[in-house]
């Protein structure tokens, strides 16, 4: 199908960001004309459009049976043109981001927040979709900056005492990290003369990496580790998440870690960094120390959002641990992707039920929240059990040390899960009289998926296998 000379894929993938920019302009116009009451419906329409476009892109990819779909913006070939690239791995994350966006805008119906959060959330999701679509590393940087600038604003509109200080506490180190990321990019460009990820991957695969480029890639990974809030950089995340509003916490606890894992795995594949044993040891050490530290901190936390922040850090550290220790002869990379999929499901359930708590009566909210917590612990019959069970099973077969390290992560999940479950009773919120059917149905899909994939786990493994293969082929 061709529309005005562009293919349907181009309309869907590039058009998605265009749609959001259009809605952002509408938001700003409505706010300037003091007609904020229309923002709710306008942004729900934007979210629904993004979900439809994301599903369309995914189906297009599956139906055409090609490894990836790409588009050079303006018809320019890389390295001069910006490349937009969708393959199975990022197309699934794009669907997840679109559903997260829908949940955020649904929750804003009952959250008492200033109208400025609407355009800020739109800007935030422009950044998220941009990062996921980008085929070159400089564009990733640009969209990461859009995302982080929007998040500075969101942290500062929480309504809590000391919010500007919290925003600065978060913003200044993040600005430094962005500088580190940019320096890494410039070093890579100085060495290779391109920033297109596909071209870089070809260059790194056929020649040994230039020391300058290796240093640059190291800087990029270091910046992403900071953004993932791994040890010793976890404090910013827990402070921000415990003091800000719940929709922003949802972003930091659910979308942001998944995005960081995606970028780390993609950069490690592009620059062939898994062949460097020293980096592997460093990442494993960081992930394990993170698991231990956040388990202790989560267990002693008295703030629900802070405990959940520690939990989301532990989950992503576990996925990264499995990805780094994987070799072509073992299945651990596959289970890191299974764990990533599970994290997406249970974090959405946990944060989603808290975000939409105003629209859910107790009889719905309690089971949704508890199911998310049970899945994050890895209780049998939930999807979370699948990744933890197989990870433990395969690490035991490979080496006792890896098994013990995996057990550390399971203990961390149990510690934060139990504490978060107890802390939920102290979480106060405003409730409306009736349950919103839209909010309930979106969360019910995740609730059903948790049990369905916990019992029939083969579709979960197949999807993770397809994601892993697509990263290896197209990353």
């Amino acid at each position, binding site marked *: 199908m061709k529309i005005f000379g562009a293919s349907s894929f181009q309309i869907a993938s590039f058009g998605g960001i265009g749609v959001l920019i259009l809605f952002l302009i509408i938001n700003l116009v409505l706010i300037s004309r003091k007609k904020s009451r229309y923002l709710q419906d306008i942004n729900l329409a934007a979210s629904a459009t993004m979900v439809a476009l994301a599903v369309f892109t995914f189906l297009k990819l599956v139906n055409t049976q090609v490894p990836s779909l790409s588009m050079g913006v303006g018809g320019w070939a890389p*390295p*001069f043109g910006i490349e937009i690239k969708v393959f199975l791995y990022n197309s699934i994350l794009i669907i997840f981001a679109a559903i997260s966006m829908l949940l955020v805008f649904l929750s804003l119906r009952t959250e008492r927040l200033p109208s400025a959060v609407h355009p800020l959330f739109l800007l935030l999701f422009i950044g998220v979709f941009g990062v996921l679509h980008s085929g070159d590393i*400089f564009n990733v940087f*640009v969209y990461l*900056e859009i995302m982080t*600038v929007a998040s*500075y*604003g969101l942290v*500062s509109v929480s309504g809590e005492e*000391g919010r*500007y*200080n919290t*925003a*600065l*506490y978060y*913003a*200044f180190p993040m*600005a*430094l990290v*962005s*500088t580190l990321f*940019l*320096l890494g*990019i*410039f070093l890579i*460009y*100085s060495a290779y*003369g391109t*920033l297109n990820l596909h071209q870089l991957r070809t260059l790194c695969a056929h020649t040994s990496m230039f020391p300058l480029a290796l240093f640059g890639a190291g800087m990029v990974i270091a910046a992403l580790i900071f953004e993932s809030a791994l040890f010793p950089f976890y404090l910013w995340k827990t402070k921000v998440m415990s003091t800000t509003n719940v929709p922003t916490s949802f972003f930091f606890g659910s979308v942001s870690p998944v995005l960081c894992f995606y970028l780390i795995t993609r950069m490690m594949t592009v620059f062939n960094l898994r062949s460097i044993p020293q980096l592997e040891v460093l990442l494993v050490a960081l992930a394990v120390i993170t698991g231990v530290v956040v388990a202790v901190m989560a267990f002693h936390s008295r703030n629900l959002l802070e405990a959940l922040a520690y939990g989301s850090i532990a989950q992503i550290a576990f996925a990264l641990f499995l990805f780094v220790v994987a070799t072509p002869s073992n299945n651990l990379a596959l289970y890191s992707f299974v764990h990533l999929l599970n994290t997406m499901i249970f974090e959405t359930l946990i944060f989603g039920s808290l975000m939409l708590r105003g629209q859910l009566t107790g009889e719905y909210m309690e089971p949704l929240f508890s199911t998310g917590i049970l899945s994050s612990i890895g209780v049998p019959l939930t999807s979370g059990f699948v990744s933890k069970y197989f990870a433990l099973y395969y690490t035991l077969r490979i080496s006792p040390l890896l098994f013990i390290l995996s057990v550390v992560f399971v203990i961390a999940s149990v510690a934060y899960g139990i504490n978060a479950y107890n802390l939920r009773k102290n979480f106060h919120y405003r409730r409306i009289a009736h349950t919103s059917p839209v909010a309930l149905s979106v969360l019910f899909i995740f609730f059903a998926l948790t049990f369905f994939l916990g019992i029939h786990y083969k579709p979960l493994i197949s999807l993770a296998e397809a994601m892993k293969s697509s990263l290896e082929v197209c990353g």
Partner: protein
Amino acid sequence: MMEHVLSILLISAGIMVVMFAKSFMKKVMGLGIIVNGMHAYLVASAYRQGGVAPILTPGMKLGGFVGSAVDPLPQALILTSIVIDVSVTAVLLALYVRAVESGETP
């Protein structure tokens, strides 16, 4: 080579300011110095002795053009980076002003 050394010195100076300055405003300025040092580094890397603008004009021989045209990409990257740096600095300073106004001086 000299340009590279100067840009690395600029980056180092910015890092020193960020690390040791007590005022938040000075730390933000240090961040700006680091970014500008990085821009200078990329300009130095892309510099080509006797280079011409990468625009093929009538009468220009293709072989000579390819041999002397400069790479336009670093300038595009730097331009984008400057815009991003200005936006981030503006947001940081706006947050700082709000923090001071509400008595939350960092």
